[in-house]
């Protein structure tokens, strides 16, 4: 009898979740567009809208080379992007790339001329099956620097390259349903391997969630050289932005000239955690790290947001170009005041002169 009672109790405990209240609905993993910063890709606040929907939004590759001019201290003073879009099928195209553009010029190998509108690069035409669209875009510095992946600091004795992609985002921990978590974890991993954005990431939970903060960053492959005098110091490394964020290159006394090449690196897949709670945390971290990495694959947005994209960032010590912007106190303003004064003077003087003339 006692065995029967124990067996009944065990059965009841196993049955309880199904027989009682319905299991909590599956919850979505933190959704990257919601929790991650919006940029990159760069997105100016005001962008003209085309009267027609863009066309040719699939079947294209996007490659970018972002050239950042840095001063002697490593601060950016110019940002230029060579964006190359390769259309790989036949059809009309009308594409816009929102960007804080100052000027746009045709890039090497382009088979069409880029257009420019306020905060837009504009492409339109017909692709006979394959068409290369390439443009150099000079960007407004203030609206571009926040989207750059590294900061370079040049100090006496050292050059430091810091991964600047790290952000702290809201996440959660919970006791997950192992079966649904297994599926979601597998989907995230296979998507990262295939370099496509994972979708439909809902996981069943056993109990409630606990809010947490999570630090994520785009892993970067960094390489470059520092030239001081006649000496050339090469360096390279992987900055994942969480465990390792900085690369410090000791340099001898002198005026270093820096060239750094940065590329978002593949997200490394660790062995799946055995503990479901740990596996959930690992899956969320992988999902968001991959999403953050993909953001830096598009400094300027690709017309095909989910298609293949890559970006290489090159930081170089260069002399700042003279500013094209007019000085704050322009001669025109001074002239305007002068003309007003002259006008007022004449207005006052003319009647007086008339009276004098009449009485003369």
């Amino acid at each position, binding site marked *: 009898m006692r065995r029967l009672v124990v067996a009944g109790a065990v059965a009841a405990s196993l049955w309880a979740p199904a027989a009682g209240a319905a299991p909590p609905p599956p919850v979505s993993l933190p959704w990257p567009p919601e929790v991650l910063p919006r940029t990159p890709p760069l997105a100016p606040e005001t962008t*003209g809208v*085309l*009267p*027609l929907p863009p*066309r040719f939004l699939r079947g294209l590759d996007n490659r970018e080379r972002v050239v950042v001019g840095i001063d002697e201290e490593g601060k950016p003073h110019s940002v230029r992007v060579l964006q190359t879009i390769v259309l790989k099928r*036949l*059809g*009309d195209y*009308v594409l816009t790339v929102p960007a804080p553009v100052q000027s*746009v010029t045709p890039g090497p190998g382009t088979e*069409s*001329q*880029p*257009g*420019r*509108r*306020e905060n837009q690069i*504009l492409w*339109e*035409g*017909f*692709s*006979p*099956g394959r068409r290369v669209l390439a443009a150099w875009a000079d960007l407004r510095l203030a609206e571009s620097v926040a989207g750059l992946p590294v900061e370079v600091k040049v100090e006496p004795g050292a050059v430091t390259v810091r991964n600047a992609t790290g952000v702290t985002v809201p996440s959660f921990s919970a006791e997950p349903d192992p079966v649904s978590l297994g599926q979601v974890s597998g989907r995230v991993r296979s998507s990262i391997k295939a370099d496509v954005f994972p979708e439909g990431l809902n996981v069943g939970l056993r109990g409630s969630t606990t809010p947490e903060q999570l630090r994520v960053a785009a892993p970067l492959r960094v390489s470059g050289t520092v030239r001081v005098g006649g000496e050339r110091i090469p360096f390279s490394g992987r900055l994942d932005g969480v465990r390792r964020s900085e690369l410090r290159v000791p340099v001898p006394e002198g005026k270093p000239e820096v060239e750094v090449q940065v590329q978002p690196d593949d997200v490394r897949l660790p062995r799946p955690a055995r503990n479901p709670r740990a596996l959930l945390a690992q899956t969320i971290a992988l999902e968001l790290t991959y999403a953050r990495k993909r953001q830096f694959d598009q400094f300027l947005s690709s017309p095909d947001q989910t298609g293949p994209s890559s970006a290489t960032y090159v930081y170089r010590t260069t002399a700042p170009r003279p500013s094209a912007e007019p000085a704050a106190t322009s001669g025109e303003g001074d002239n305007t005041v002068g003309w007003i004064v002259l006008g007022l003077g004449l207005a006052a003087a003319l009647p007086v002169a008339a009276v004098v003339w009449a009485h003369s």
Partner: protein
Amino acid sequence: MQRLALLTLALCAFLPACGGDGGSEDSTKTLLVAVNAPFSRTPYVGQTIADGAQLAADEANIQTDEGTYRLRIKRYDTGLSARTAVRNVRQAIADGAVAIVDEGTGVNASWRLANDADRPLGITYQGGVDLVDLEQRPNVFRIAPTDHGTAFRLAEYLIPKHDKIGLIVDDSTYGQEGAKAIRESFSHNPESVAIRLTVPSDAADLAPEVLRARRSGADALLVWAQPTTIAGVLSAARSSGWDVPVYTPASGEDPLVRQQLANHPEWVDGLTFATGRPTAEVGPGPFLAFQRKYEDRFGVQLVGVKTPEGEEVVQPPDYAMYSYDFVNVLAAAIEKAGGVEDRQKLIDALHQVSVQGANGDHRGFNENNHEGVVDDDVYFARFDAMVYRPVKDDPLSATLTPLEQVR
């Protein structure tokens, strides 16, 4: 009492609200748009430009904070004379035109008059390379295929097909602008050129020139000339038994070519011309809708020839769509600029607005480009039995739907 009336009148003179055109806030103002085109010398071109502009003006209902604007079209005949064209632009500005829709003749001089008066000038026929210059001629825009685009597309299409091509241009402005463009487009493949000839545009007989081309070993002719010259070349070649393929720019589709060869319709067969596509990937729907409106308003444009089955051939209003599109872009720019008081603001607004073109394409200009037809949009069509169809051996042309051309 008389003094009071005089005082009131004097006060009114200082108050803009008492003026006529200012009116109340909801009054409709009419803005003049000039069409400067060769109505007397090439009536098809002049008429089609003016009708396209008129159709868009009829439809324009421009709403701004300052009130509602309507557009009125006034025609000025250039007679294909640059001097007259310049005089017309001066007169149009004096008449108060807010913009000029232009065929292209005389623009090398007239743009300056328009620029000094801050008037936009939109070319909707000629494609001359130098006519539009973003830096030097900031007020000049164009919605029409460029000679540069047409010439490069022709070179790209012809060079793989033919060993030796005879290049014939006439001495008209149109022909000479074309000569510049094809010189550039064939510059990378000089071995493909059998001969270059310039012929008089008013020549009665082109047999000697065509014979020279034949003796040069040409196995195709590219004729960049006025319609009469094209008809003359076809006539000289076919009457001598030379069945050489003939290619032309857009002037090859001018009804005048078929009218002049109406007695020998088979001589037109195979004539292939390059021009801007009238339909886009979205299909013929938008253009057919435009054509219906156009024909409802102005009637069909009869070419004056018949098919072998006895059907009347009509000319689709493909060039009318360019002037139609330009006036629509202009209307959108006036709306964006909030009127026409600030002329520079209107020209700036032309860089930022787009409309859906008559063929379903996006039409507009931008800060980098004052060309409203991209070079990619040039297609090829070939005549057969007095009507033309897009060719099948060119990727863009093969995607296009043939237009109905008989009634």
